[in-house]
């Protein structure tokens, strides 16, 4: 990593004691102000953010695969164009997040390396296969829907660059969810076989989508710290409940059911009750035992390695052009000085 320029070179932060720096950071958080890259921040805050933001970026990048898989088999040219636009968005979201994470001092290629070596995680949902075209619908509606539910509060995350990337991402995600819902709507209003396809996709993605909010609050030890730092604004279970409440009527509008016998309106709580999720499966997938973990990671590694020559060629081209421009400058310099 090049240390070409550092606007904090003359920083007066050095003159403050550790306690004073911590106090100033705490005061900014308490006042609901944003922390910016050049501000002092506790190492744990920085580490937590790098982990969360890079995992988030990795998820966007790996998330291109289940859908990319269906681009060549989309049922019409229009749907193919839409799916390509969506996959391009995921790439864009990954890049927004990588550059936001880089402001914390971790170079991008280091984050790539962490992903490809398996040290960094990504959302476990992408380790499930996309078996049918209806899965494009279920992924858009449920997976992107859960992601939006998670991400809207992150627009107010205390770290400025993270919040700003989330604003951009959320604006773009809403198209993803609607197009997914519409795929399912079309199928569920088609032939009985098409409707069955839609139902099957919803059946497979419902549980994993609910698990995207993370483990239950009592098994999520880092949540409280993230909430104290105002990175996270709501707990895993709060967000999951919010999502369930949203999708029940949406499923009804589709004419499809959600595969949860315990799903029922609870008058007293003013929320839908939902059944216990399979957390053994969740932790198994996180540990690498999901249906597609190896395939997803290998595909990412192959794509990175196969792109090496392109990156090298572009860098070499840039170097040559620079060299040529420099030579042209020295050639014309004497003429220029004579004219003066």
């Amino acid at each position: 990593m090049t240390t070409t320029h550092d606007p904090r070179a003359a920083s007066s932060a050095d003159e403050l004691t550790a306690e004073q720096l911590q106090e100033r950071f705490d005061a900014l958080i308490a006042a609901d102000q944003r922390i910016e890259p050049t501000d002092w921040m506790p190492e744990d805050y920085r580490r937590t953010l790098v982990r969360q933001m890079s995992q988030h970026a990795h998820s966007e990048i790996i998330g291109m695969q289940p859908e990319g898989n269906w681009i060549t088999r989309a049922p019409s040219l229009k749907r193919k164009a839409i799916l390509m636009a969506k996959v391009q968005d995921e790439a864009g979201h990954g890049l927004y997040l990588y550059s936001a994470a880089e402001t914390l001092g971790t170079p991008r290629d280091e984050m790539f390396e962490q992903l490809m070596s398996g040290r960094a995680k990504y959302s476990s949902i992408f380790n499930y296969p996309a078996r049918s075209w209806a899965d494009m619908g279920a992924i858009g509606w449920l997976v992107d829907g859960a992601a939006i539910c998670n991400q809207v509060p992150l627009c107010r995350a205390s770290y400025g660059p993270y919040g700003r990337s989330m604003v951009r991402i959320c604006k773009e995600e809403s198209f993803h969810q609607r197009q997914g819902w519409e795929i399912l709507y079309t199928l569920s209003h088609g032939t009985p076989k098409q409707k069955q396809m839609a139902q099957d996709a919803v059946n497979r993605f419902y549980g994993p989508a609910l698990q995207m909010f993370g483990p239950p609050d009592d098994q999520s030890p880092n949540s409280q710290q993230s909430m104290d730092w105002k990175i996270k604004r709501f707990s895993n279970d709060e967000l999951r409940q919010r999502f369930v409440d949203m999708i029940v009527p949406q499923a009804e509008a589709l004419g499809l059911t959600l595969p949860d016998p315990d799903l029922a309106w609870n008058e007293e709580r003013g929320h839908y009750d939902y059944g216990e999720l399979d957390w053994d499966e969740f932790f198994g997938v996180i540990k690498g035992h999901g249906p597609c973990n190896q395939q997803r990671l290998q595909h990412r590694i192959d794509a990175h390695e196969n792109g090496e020559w392109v990156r090298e060629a572009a860098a070499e081209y840039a170097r040559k052009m620079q060299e040529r421009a420099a030579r042209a400058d020295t050639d014309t310099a004497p003429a220029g000085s004579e004219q003066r």
Partner: protein
Amino acid sequence: MTSENTPAQAPVGQQSESATGGAPAGRHQWPMWEVFVRPSRGLSHVHAGSLHAPDAQMALRNGRDLYTRRNEGVSVWVVPTAEVSASDPDRRDAFFESAKGKEYRHATYYTKSEGVKHL
């Protein structure tokens, strides 16, 4: 559109040493660029974000693909992040002191004309 208020990516170098123990040898990462987008005629270019690219031409193309997929712009600027100079956030108070306490620079400071039209 949100605007970033600091050339945020610049301080990467110093922090990477403390946060990650320094970069492994043999890195040849493309340099970083800051991207500014003019949303439409009559408006200024606004910072949209950053990206890596080998040269200005590629930075412009990548900037277009990354930050204007939905017609968000009619013009893009790219600037090498390393070329951005920024004020020191830790000296903010001193740096901006001369503008403080000068309410008389705002029209709202003058109250006698209240009720008088076109003033």
